[in-house]
């Protein structure tokens, strides 16, 4: 499953990221934030007024906002 379909507050591990679909700067920024294969994450908040964008994820002791297009590039496994 990909990160965008992960139910909220479910702990998961990123097992693969398809960097090719993301802009190089965005890929760099995500990696710098530690969002990469092996990272343990959970979705904290999703969307506004019932929408699906953006997504706030918990990683380590941080909350990071990103878009669904980024989440869709990440394959995750529930823990």
């Amino acid at each position, binding site marked *: 499953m990909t990160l965008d379909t992960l139910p909220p507050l479910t702990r998961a591990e990123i097992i693969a990221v398809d960097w090719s679909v993301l802009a190089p700067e965005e890929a760099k*920024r995500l990696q710098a934030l530690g969002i*990469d294969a092996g990272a343990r994450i959970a979705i904290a908040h999703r*969307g506004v007024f019932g929408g699906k964008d953006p997504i706030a994820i918990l990683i380590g*002791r941080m*909350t*990071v906002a990103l878009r669904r297009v980024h989440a869709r590039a990440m394959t995750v496994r529930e823990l």
Partner: protein
Amino acid sequence: MNTHAVPEAAISPAVVALVGNPNAGKSALFNALTGARQKIANYPGVTVERKSGRLALTDGAAVDLIDLPGSYSLDASSPDEEVTRRVVMGEFPGEAMPDTLVLVLDAGNLEQHLVFAQEIIALGRPTVVALNMIDMAERDGLVFDAQALAQSLGVPVIPTVAVRKRGLGELTEAIASAHGQDMSLRHKVERLGLIERRVAAHAMAAGATLSESGVHRLHTKLDKVLLDPWAGPLILFGLLFVIFQAVFAWATPFADALDGAVGWLIDLAVANVPAGLVRDFITQGVLSGVGSVVVFLPQIVILFAFILAMEQSGYMARAAFIMDRLMASVGLSGRSFIPLLSSFACAIPGIMATRSIADPKDRLTTILIAPLMTCSARLPVYAVIIGAFIPARSVGVGVGLQGLVLFALYLAGVIGAMLAALVLRRTVTKGAASGFIMEMPRYQLPPLSDLALGLWQRAWIFLRRAGTIIFTVTVVLWVLLSFPQAEPGESQSEASIAGHIASGLEVIVAPIGFNHEIALSLIPAMAAREVAVASLATTYAVDAADDEAAAEAVGPKLAADWSLATALAFLAWFVFAPQCLSTIAVARRETNGWKWPLVMLGYLFGLAYVFAGITYWTAVAFGLG
């Protein structure tokens, strides 16, 4: 090589640079170390803010402390990060390579911040670590062993709480003793790849953390409400409503006082300077012109108080999160929300606030649409025309027609801006859809001293601009309106260069329903929109003591002379027209050239012309001409 060159150290003090991740509390530490003795400028060629100040060491020597933009990595992914990399590496032209680096780490987010820290320490330069925000981490149940961290990093580690001024003495001492040491042999951290650094960061953070609780309690609880898909936006809109109320209501007494002060200065000049060109220059040119801009200072200060509080408390990132979906629909991101919000007071600080947008195309688009947000200078123009032409009757429970028209004008600006962004992102600022990746900082109570310092800096930037750019523009316009001198019996505004320009302009604006008087008022309105009202008053030979009285008196004259279609077209014009040379000047500085300000002028005048025309002819078709 010039062997006679004076050694650098002899002429300039040592340079110490603060580096670290965004949200590590770097700016608060910078404020705490330097106090109010700060210099804010731009790095040449890029619009990244350069903050520097003096730090007195314990032995009496002083060093230059610079606050580098927050970075996640030396492998830069934004203009800010590129500046940090080049300054740290000593590759920035005109910037001395820092002698000592102070690495600022958030204790509450240690593992993540150690990833970048290793990159900096591996450079082998004199480095001191400030383990910052240790109080908030402790509140979250974290207990640290700074000594263990110092052991594994090979550099001194000083626990600090910048906002409470804790640990500053120890940090200053560590900076003094690190200075000039060759650290390359003492550093234990090797140059590693990102993956290895992450693994090492995990191990080091675990080794330095004696005990750990699960989560940030306060942080999670607040986010649960403020980022709720339904409650979050409602809270944000409620807050925006309060801000707007405050900007327009609280500022009035202060603005009136400033206006009174300007009037007093004018009276003083009239009483003491003999009548003639010099007096006219002082009263009509300098005082009225610069004064008409300075009266916006209270609104700008109030707006910035809210914006700074939102930023320093960590809420602004949440506001960006909530607005992201809406902004994404026109090709922007949540990051554009802050500058656009500022632009409701004045586009100048709004355009300056676009510096936080990393994506250059996003930033440019935001700069180009910022003037469409209805700034406070349009309000006097709207008020006069609405008062003169729109009947004060009710259209429903508690809703007046005049208020409805005013709201429609604000809405027209916002919708115009969104549509403009949509078109710009598909044409001149075309590029890949910008992403939105943003770390949400932890919540904290902003220290009042930091808030006050930030406000003072913003106010000073605004006043300095009023004293330079706006002063120059005002003087040029005054010259255009005052020369050549009118013959007796001839109107000065008609005889002047501006009068002749207006005659030429009239040919262009006649098709959209504008008369000669309007054409003439558009010229001084280029300095500041609200001057249009005073100018119309002068042209219609209304004898009034000040702008306000002029505005009151000019209404009936306009109502008698203009058709409703002309009045509506005039309003539509002001929604879009870039009638503010200061904004253009700021856009030129922020985009480093004339290309984009000219694009801005072109498209906004185009929109203003087309919409004023559509408004005029539609109204005429409905028999309002």
